[in-house]
């Protein structure tokens, strides 16, 4: 039985209790920020900000919509971070995708590979500089959730927009909610995460297209084309690059041979 987090964005009111509850439980310090013309801060997830609300404003005719997205690690079934991790420090433990902090070397590859920008390895040091460390991200509060406590963010949600439990049960609940929303003026309501990347363990009820929230409509596994990429490199080396060499130096050789012949 795999658990999943259900995030009903039609209920989220962006109070950001989840954002701070995550820091509180996981003892993550604050980031120094400035207002950049948005309620949203920190501007991005980071090694010390594992979940946050992304604010998106959208005008639909005369009406304005304010969309909130609770960002964080999706614990993908087909996890890009796990695939690209060179040391195997990132692994599935049941549905959890976890980084072994004792084994991770902090190369940052997972950071680039994540389709959701959910994992990071840069820390701000006390003097304001940056330092690289092991990769950190949402762990679904694994110490809580394996001890029958809900994740800190789920527990704290005053809007009741978050749920935690058996994935099938969460899926059923999400689908029911999507149905209710579609019938009550949100024709674009949809469920995100059921099939993406083999099934996410964060399931979203959205009232608009995923991309309207800043989610990839079709998230892609980082190494889905890696074979073709290797091939591309090798073919380029072999065909595109070697061919001119072959032509030029063959010609030189031939010329040398003929010149040599003439000279002798």
């Amino acid at each position, binding site marked *: 039985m795999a658990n999943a987090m259900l995030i009903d964005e039609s209920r989220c009111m962006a109070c950001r209790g989840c954002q701070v509850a995550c820091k509180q439980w996981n*003892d993550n310090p604050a980031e120094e920020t400035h207002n950049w013309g948005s309620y949203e801060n920190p501007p991005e997830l980071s090694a010390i900000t594992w979940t946050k609300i992304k604010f998106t404003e959208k005008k639909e005719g005369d009406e304005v919509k304010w969309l909130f997205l609770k960002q964080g690690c999706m614990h993908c079934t087909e996890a890009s971070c796990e695939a690209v991790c060179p040391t195997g420090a990132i692994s599935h433990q049941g549905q959890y995708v976890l980084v072994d902090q004792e084994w991770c070397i902090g190369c940052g590859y997972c950071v680039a590979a994540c389709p959701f920008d959910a994992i990071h390895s840069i820390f701000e040091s006390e003097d304001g500089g940056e330092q690289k460390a092991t990769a950190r991200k949402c762990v679904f509060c694994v110490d809580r959730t394996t001890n029958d406590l809900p994740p800190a963010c789920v527990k704290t949600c005053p809007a009741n927009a978050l749920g935690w439990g058996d994935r099938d049960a969460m899926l059923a609940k999400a689908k029911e909610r999507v149905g209710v929303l579609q019938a009550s003026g949100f024709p674009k309501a949809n469920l995100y995460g059921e099939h993406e990347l083999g099934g996410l363990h964060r399931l979203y009820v959205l009232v608009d297209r995923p991309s309207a929230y800043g989610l990839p409509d079709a998230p892609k596994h980082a190494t889905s084309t890696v074979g073709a990429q290797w091939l591309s490199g090798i073919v380029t080396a072999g065909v595109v690059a070697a061919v001119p060499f072959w032509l030029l130096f063959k010609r030189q050789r031939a010329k040398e041979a003929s010149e040599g012949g003439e000279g002798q």
Partner: protein
Amino acid sequence: MLEISRRQFLKGSGVSTGALLLPPMVPGRQEVPTFALHKKVGEARTICPYCSCGCGLLIATDSTGHIINSEGDPDHPNNRGALDPKSISVRQLSTSPHRLSKVMRRAPGASEWEEMTWEEAIPLVARRIKDTRDDTFQTTDDNGVTVNRTNGIAFIGGAANNDEDCYIAVKLARALGLVYIEHQARI
């Protein structure tokens, strides 16, 4: 002095940069191992000091009485464990290095505080109150009605204080004859 450096900012977090460190794991496990809670959830129950919803809090402290965890009280009917960002932050409210922790006096014209003890400060405070009260006390008004008041001292109270704090403050202020008594409810 008044600028907050990066160091102070992080220090104010009251936590180290060492986030939840997971122990070594065997990759690709189907069954999830049980991880030990990295800190106490807390048993002490109190009520949030921010808005008037009166949500229940669970608080855990370390051996010195400093808060190491704060989250919602799942048994509280008002919030059932839920909390907004402020309520969760009571941990930093209590443990902040920016909290006032010393009795201080600022002398007239001075540009800095001077630290003192309660034993030094309280007699000075009582003296100022008494002198001003005695100097400005009105026993009767122009019509000869007993008014027993002072216009020389004003009290402004907080709306985040406990009932009993407020009660004692009002009792004391009225007994001293204060009529300028106001607080957040007015503004």
